[in-house]
């Protein structure tokens, strides 16, 4: 790892806020940010002394052994899983096992909405000389990038809710940076209503908040709803179905609070 990479990684770790869930476990991936497999590798990369790392996603727990910033292997999976790689030390000399570990992890957690980690005392695993593979090495073997620069909050919000939104118009510093779905009605709002709305609303609430999410139910003639997300110099106009209100609010709160 170059000094630049190491510095970037340290900075990313400092920027990222640590969230602890109700069980006391540390939250390391929410809404696929970062991808669960990346989150696992980051944890391995942060583990110097031998530890068991228990990753929870939904009802699944994956326990691995890591030491010296290397993944030694997958110790256990609950609910029970019959994959042969469980209990085996992974090694570059056995590429099939390395791939099997990746396939197992992906099948268990790739789509996880949330992943947490608990660091537990190590337990006997493999032979002393079997060191496993470094996290950095696994990113190359598995074709996973170490996504060390966090996405900007608005990008995170829009990607986390992409499936919920019917259409999106994302504007940064006055320029449209991305769109999805039928954006014609949103373009109309952007051109003719947003400035007036912001001025009038800001006057009412004595200034605009740095981050603000406005939802207006059934604001379109077809019964769908409109939302305006503001963050610093970014605006996102969104059309959504009213029943997704609570889901969007939770996501907004997780990202912007």
């Amino acid at each position, binding site marked *: 790892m170059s000094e630049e990479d190491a510095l970037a990684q340290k900075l990313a770790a400092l920027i990222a806020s640590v969230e602890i869930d109700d069980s006391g476990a540390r939250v390391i991936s929410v809404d696929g940010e970062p991808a669960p497999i990346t989150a696992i590798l980051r944890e391995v990369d942060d583990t110097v002394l031998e530890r068991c790392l228990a990753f929870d996603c939904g009802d699944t727990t994956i326990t691995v052994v890591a030491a010296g910033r290397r993944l030694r292997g997958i110790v256990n999976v609950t609910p029970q899983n019959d994959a042969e790689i469980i209990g085996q030390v992974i090694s570059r000399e056995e590429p099939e096992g390395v791939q099997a570990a990746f396939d197992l992890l992906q099948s268990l957690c790739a789509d996880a909405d949330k992943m947490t980690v608990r660091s537990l005392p190590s337990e006997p695993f493999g032979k002393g000389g079997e060191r496993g593979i470094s996290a950095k090495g696994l990113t190359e073997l598995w074709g996973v990038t170490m996504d060390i620069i966090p996405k900007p909050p608005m990008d995170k919000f829009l990607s986390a809710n992409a499936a919920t939104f019917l259409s999106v118009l994302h504007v940064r510093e006055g320029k449209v940076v991305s769109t999805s779905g039928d954006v014609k009605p949103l373009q109309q709002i952007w051109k003719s209503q947003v400035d007036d709305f912001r001025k009038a609303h800001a006057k009412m609430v004595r200034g605009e908040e740095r981050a603000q999410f406005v939802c*207006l139910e059934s*604001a379109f003639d077809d019964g769908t709803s*409109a939302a305006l997300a503001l963050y610093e110099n970014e605006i996102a106009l969104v059309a959504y179905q009213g029943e997704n209100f609570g889901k969007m609010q939770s996501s907004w709160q997780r990202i912007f*609070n």
Partner: protein
Amino acid sequence: MVVDELDALRDKFEGCAALAFADLSTKMILVTDSGSNLRREALDALCAEAAFLLGANGTPALAEQPSDKASVTSPSQMRVFLRAEQEPNDVLCCICNSKLDADAFVADAGACLDRISGSE
């Protein structure tokens, strides 16, 4: 009693900080929950925001038609504005913290508003 309905709703949701029942035709807050200590100016601003977001004059704040439910969420606060089903000028203005279960709150707040509006 309207205030009892508002107090019950506030008591049910820990994240609910203040509730106000307003009349959009006069743009006035009529009743607040008994624990609310909002000053007159804050109540006026809340009512003005409700009128603006719900399109009290028939003009939508954004998009194509006035809404019956609007919300503004900032990092520290969520304000929710609801219009009564039967009487469009009856509105419930809610100030909550941002850790609230939004779906559950809005469902209960809507039912509370309809009871208040219907009993007037």
